[in-house]
């Protein structure tokens, strides 16, 4: 039987968290997460200092961290993304140590190989049993896959399951195995049910998104790229979701099926699984609340850990089996490099997520985005922050059409034969200059406030404090 605690402070004292140690979290509860707050607050009240917070991502709901950095409880952060108030705080140069930003695969590697040694992993679970088994698939706050947490439980020195649904009987589904669990903490609520259940994804009705999606779907239908039996990652942005909608119809009409879909799994992919358009789903992170129920009922909807998903040191990871991926971008430059972490104003606006992993592993990677957002061009001469190298990108699709890398001669010929003109990045860049000119670049200071690593731990970009 696992040790069960109902008092967080007693638990922290028992497992003996010390100053300067590394504690980790997953972000499967999306904007509804309360677990990080419960742990950090208790650590502060116990006078623990200089913690390193290592989270699979940091959301807006974690803005409270600024307060705990100010009071010395938290000293360092490792994450896949930064946003809002915490992002501005970091950019203002208020942290002594730079934030380490990694992709999901990069984090899996760092945690697995010991580059980041986790002292205690606090893993939210919507159900746990008194043996220590845990899952996100059942329980009142079911959130779906525990893909990031599963790998954490296998590598952390100590693992604590945090749940609001403890069962005396053994769980039917065990995402995290009791053999990797040291203790279970029972709390009133692991998160805000409404925000956990709401999911983050809805199809946008705006015409620009629809146009880019139409261009993307048309490209996939007419490029000669093999769709039948392909492995896909479609992403979770509005453009990707609408593209899936267009493709769904085409696949059904032509009696084609995708072999598998991976990554963040959306309700739309679940629908495609149920209709038989995709044969199986490998779910490392669930974007819609229906995913939990689907994994519970459907044996072809698999929960996978992040090691299986994208760890580059694991040669059999799933991103390497991908045939087609659709990814978004905050910026792309004329050398095909992509930025998904900072906006053109220099502010943190997103997360690396699986971007680097998928782009590197996948057979054909497409970046989709409007060419101009508001009055800001997405295509630029040089990305503000390099996140994914241009060598891993194969095509860029925007509202004005399709731009495939020149080395894909066969695809370009096929497109031309089907009446689709292949644009060049230069042509599109000139269009942005003509329409909206060249925006001023942000002005940075000298202090390094964040480091973006590649999947293997090399530094890709150093982000400096933002002056203007």
């Amino acid at each position, binding site marked *: 039987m696992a040790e069960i605690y109902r008092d967080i402070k007693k638990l922290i004292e028992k497992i003996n968290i010390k100053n300067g140690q590394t504690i980790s979290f997953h972000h499967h509860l999306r904007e509804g997460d309360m677990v990080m707050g419960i742990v950090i607050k208790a650590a502060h009240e116990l006078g623990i200092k200089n913690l390193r917070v290592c989270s699979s991502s940091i959301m807006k709901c974690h803005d409270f961290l600024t307060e705990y950095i100010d009071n010395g409880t938290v000293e360092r952060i490792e994450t896949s993304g930064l946003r809002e108030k915490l992002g501005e705080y970091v950019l203002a140069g208020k942290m002594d140590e730079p934030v380490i930003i990694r992709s999901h695969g990069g984090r899996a590697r760092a945690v697995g190989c010991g580059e980041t040694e986790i002292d205690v992993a606090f893993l939210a679970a919507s159900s746990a049993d008194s043996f220590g088994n845990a899952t996100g698939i059942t329980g009142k706050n079911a959130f779906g896959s525990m893909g990031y947490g599963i790998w954490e439980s296998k590598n952390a020195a100590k693992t604590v399951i945090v749940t609001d649904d403890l069962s005396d009987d053994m769980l039917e589904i065990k995402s995290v195995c009791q053999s990797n669990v040291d203790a279970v903490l029972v709390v009133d609520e692991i998160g805000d049910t409404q925000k956990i259940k709401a999911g983050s994804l809805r199809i946008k009705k705006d*015409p620009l998104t629809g146009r880019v999606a*139409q261009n993307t779907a048309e490209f996939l239908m007419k490029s000669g790229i093999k769709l039948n039996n392909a492995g896909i990652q479609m992403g979770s942005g509005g453009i990707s979701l609408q593209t899936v909608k267009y493709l769904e119809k085409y696949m059904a009409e032509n009696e084609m099926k995708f072999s598998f879909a991976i990554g963040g799994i959306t309700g739309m992919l679940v629908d495609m699984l149920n209709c038989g358009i995709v044969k199986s789903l490998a779910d490392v992170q669930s974007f819609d609340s229906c995913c939990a129920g689907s994994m519970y009922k459907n044996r072809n909807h698999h929960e996978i850990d992040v090691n299986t998903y994208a760890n580059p040191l694991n040669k059999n990871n799933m991103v390497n089996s991908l045939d087609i991926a659709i990814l978004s971008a905050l910026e792309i430059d004329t050398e095909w490099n992509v930025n998904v972490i900072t906006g053109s104003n220099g502010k943190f606006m997103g997360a690396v997520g699986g971007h680097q992993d998928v782009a590197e592993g996948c057979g054909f990677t497409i970046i989709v985005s409007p060419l101009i957002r*508001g*009055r800001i061009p997405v295509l630029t001469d040089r990305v503000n922050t390099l996140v994914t190298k241009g060598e891993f990108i194969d095509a860029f699709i925007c*509202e004005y059409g399709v731009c495939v890398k020149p080395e894909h001669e066969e695809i370009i010929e096929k497109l031309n034969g089907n009446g689709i003109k292949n644009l060049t990045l230069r042509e599109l860049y000139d269009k942005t200059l*003509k329409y909206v000119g060249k925006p001023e670049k942000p002005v940075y200071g000298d202090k390094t406030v964040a480091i973006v690593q590649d999947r293997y731990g090399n530094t890709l970009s150093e982000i400096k404090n933002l002056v203007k």
Partner: protein
Amino acid sequence: MMPDRYWRSVLYVPGDNPSMIQKSFVYGADAVTLDLEDAVGMTKKHQARYLVKNAIEYLDFENTDVFVRVNSIASEMWKKDLELLNLSKITAIRLPKAEAGHEIFEISDYLAEREKELNMKNGSVFLIPGIETAKGYLNLEKILNSSERVIGVGLGSEDFITDTGISRKKLETVKVGMVLTARAYGKFVLDSVYPDFSDERGFENECVMAHECGMDGKSLIHPSQIETANRVFSPSLKELETAREILGLNRKNSTGDAFNYKGQMVDKPIIERCERIVKYGEKNG
């Protein structure tokens, strides 16, 4: 003569909105109407004229034809609307609230002078008068015949409903009437906008009704309406195949007499309709 073009979807874009103008041609509409009339408030007319001028000058509208809707003849603002524009980049001028033939003469004469100044062929810029009142409807024949530039007309239902008291649901008769008159002179007819762009089903129903009345396309107020309009106002693949077969048989028919196609008599009007359908197919792949 019916124009050698197909305007199934004609998207209105407010002339004072640079962001919307800049993206207006990416959505797949057959034409866009840069609007200087109702969509632009009185205080913004001047600014909108410059925006439209620059848009026409600098944007590449690619395969989308550009129309400009000027203010009504009665307002005297139409000349100011037109004097800045490079007419060589405009396919047609939409003229709101047309009620009489002499109005068309006036604008047609003005366009002829401007075309001369710009070394353009006389009559290059077409006119599409808007029928928005009972008087306009009753004078439709005169309006259609007032100038060679008039290639078709558009129904403006909101003003028409206000002027006549006829409900939207009962506009069917008006639409058929417009089509009959326009066809008599080889012109096309555009249906009016459907103002509630969130009502997809209502919009599609109205497109179908207009198509069944013989109308050629529809004015639109939102890009989300383009796909439906293009679909409804396009001939089906089956119609296209049939038209190609009939034209193939006609080429072999050296007598020029009517002939039999699957039990149906084929004569000149059917041949002309088939030619129109096939021409559409060639344009739209």
